């Protein structure tokens, strides 16, 4: 019999202990995503193992909800509202402008790790159409021309920090050997 390294994530264990009850999966995934920024395959497998759920089910939930991300996200998530009102007011042009500026597509992250671009459904701010969100900020009634100015504001904020190589949360990973 071979021994295989089994990871132990103490931080995830703490979350599971707190929320482990029937129907608790989404809450657990949410909390763990808050810690790591996204849900990697390894983390999903770990959660499935701890909750004794089929990994296909956990992965099904993760990929169903747009709330969950399976790829690392940038520091700021840009959400471009494509709801009806925003769409009519030219949200598509804004989305295109952002793509050009950042040289990424939807659901991708810029190389410097600063921005992740998302197209969203109506965010309920139709009075401000067309509207985008950057992190927790809302920018309303904008036109494509204003996009560079908005983005540079966030770039300047982070000029001194090297985002690219900075882990958001240190993962406390302990090797525990299992019989395979």
């Amino acid at each position, binding site marked *: *019999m071979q021994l*295989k390294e*089994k*990871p132990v994530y103490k931080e995830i264990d703490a979350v599971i202990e707190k929320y482990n009850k029937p129907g608790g999966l989404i809450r657990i995934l949410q909390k763990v995503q808050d810690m790591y920024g996204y849900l990697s*395959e*390894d983390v*999903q*497998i*770990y959660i*499935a*193992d701890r909750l004794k759920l*089929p*990994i*296909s*089910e*956990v*992965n*099904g939930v993760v*990929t*169903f909800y747009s709330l969950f991300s399976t790829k690392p996200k940038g520091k700021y998530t840009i959400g471009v509202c494509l709801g009806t009102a925003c769409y009519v007011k030219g949200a598509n042009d804004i989305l295109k402008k952002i793509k050009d500026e950042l040289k990424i597509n939807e659901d991708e992250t810029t190389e410097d790790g600063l921005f992740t671009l998302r197209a969203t459904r109506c965010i309920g701010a139709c009075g401000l159409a067309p509207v985008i969100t950057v992190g927790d900020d809302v920018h309303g009634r904008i036109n494509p021309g204003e996009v560079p100015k908005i983005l540079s504001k966030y770039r300047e904020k982070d000029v001194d920090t090297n985002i690219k190589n900075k882990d958001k949360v240190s993962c406390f990973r302990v090797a525990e050997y*299992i*019989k*395979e």
Partner: protein
Amino acid sequence: MSEEIVQLTIDDVEVEVEKGTSILEAALKVGIEIPSLCYLKEINEIGACRVCLVEVEGVKALQASCVYPITQPIKVYTSTERVRKARKRAVELLLSEHDRECTVCIRNLNCELQNVADNLGIRNLRVTGESKNYPIQMDNPFIMRDYNKCISCRRCEAICSKIQEVHVYSAQRRGLNTVIAPAFMRDLGSTNCITCGQCVIACPTASLVEKEAIEDVWAALEDKDKYVVVQTAPSIQVTLGEIFGMETGTIVTGKMVAALRRLGFKKVFPTDLSADLTIMEEAHELIERLQGHGKLPLMSSCCPAWVKFAEHFYPQLLEHLSSCKSPHEMFGALIKTYYAKKEGLDPKKIVSVAVMPCTAKKYEASRPEMGWDGYKDIDYVITTRELGRMIRQAGIHFRNLADEPFDMPFGVSSGAGAIFGATGGVIEAAVRSAYAILNNRNKEMGLIDFEELRGQSGVKEAMVDLGKKKIKVAIAHGTGNARIILDRILNGEHYDYIEIMGCPGGCVGGGGQPILGGRDHKRISLDYRHNRADALYKIDMHSQLRQSHDNPDVRKLYEEFLGEPLGEMSKKLLHTTYTPRGLYFNLLK
């Protein structure tokens, strides 16, 4: 349970049903088959495909009849203009994004989607969907997954989760991007899939199909330098006929042998013979363990899907598994050693083909344990379906073939070997021999038929009198049922001998057997498993030999080559080891 009866009319025909019956099932009672794609009775009743829509008087929207329980007297119309239009539209939408390469598709002429489209009279598609262009996943030796032909009916998921309780599949992503897939959309080869192929049988299209080995076998047959030998599993002789329009349960042993010879195989042997051999080894193993050497209960190891299931889900019980290889692997080992020597053949030139009811045997043949000194026990495994295709390709009129016997020296097999193909058969065969061995081969024992071990109920238990000792045996088929027994063992219940078959019904319900879906059989039915199993018991009944240890060919094998059961040579060639695979962490990259 309430047995309240409700009266209703379907297309103005009066019918009485038990309260709670679905409209779809009630309609069958009056001879109306409502078309459907996702429906599998008692397994997958989810109203997903929207093909079984009907009109219920007084209800505004059309209703999915498979999930509409009848609770009061209603009037149902199943074939109005509105219904026909809606069904057509539903199927057109499915077709609009389906990879419609019907003429070169493995399920051509046996495809439920094709049949439904034909029945509904769809002649042109008014909509064109986006083609998905997913790569076909085939990085494993047993099952191919083509998402471009998936209609998201979720039948594979239902079978895998509810019957087999393996939970490989679930719906991933959403909306138009939904796929019914293993976690992370991995290839089945790198999941906990037990390779049973029940999903292949359940799939209405060719989204899940066995990985064919036909071309390799043709190439070997064409190669003048090769000596191609074939063996057929016990259940093939009772299912192959179905492919050629014969009734389920027709015994076609002689025709099958004749067809294989015409295809060019040099020798045709029955795996039933090595089933007898398996029994010799396993019965002795049972006796050894009953005498205190090794763990009880002994668990049969003939089914590679069950073995892989145990390796993933119950690794703590692996020591209970019999170390016997499955019969076809045993045979493979003998063909390239004993038989090669006897006939003066170079084992390097022998190509060993096995016709199996099974996709798991394809996987098993690829396991590194299944061979020795660089030889593979078995070179190619083809399913019953693949053999049927080869016979069709060769243009052989199967039904008109004259019966031919198997080749010697392995041509004799006992009835005990034949019933391996049905659930309960392995234990019955082993018990027959164990009884005789323990009681000094008393032929007059009158203990041959163990009716209580037969039948299609999911879990069977019985006390069997071995003369000097009574033993408790249990039988399960379908790995979901296996869990019931295994969990009882983990909770401390005592058994002596356990037989588990991965597929419902055992090999007669195997994942490589003819798919009787399509126009006539849209649900996985118990009936054909019954008929196929009955045919095997018929073969057993009419056999002159009913006990494995009486098989003269098997005796000769031991005399000339193997020595004794569980002896040194047996251990080397006929036994194997298992690998705990773990449940989740084997998935880590």
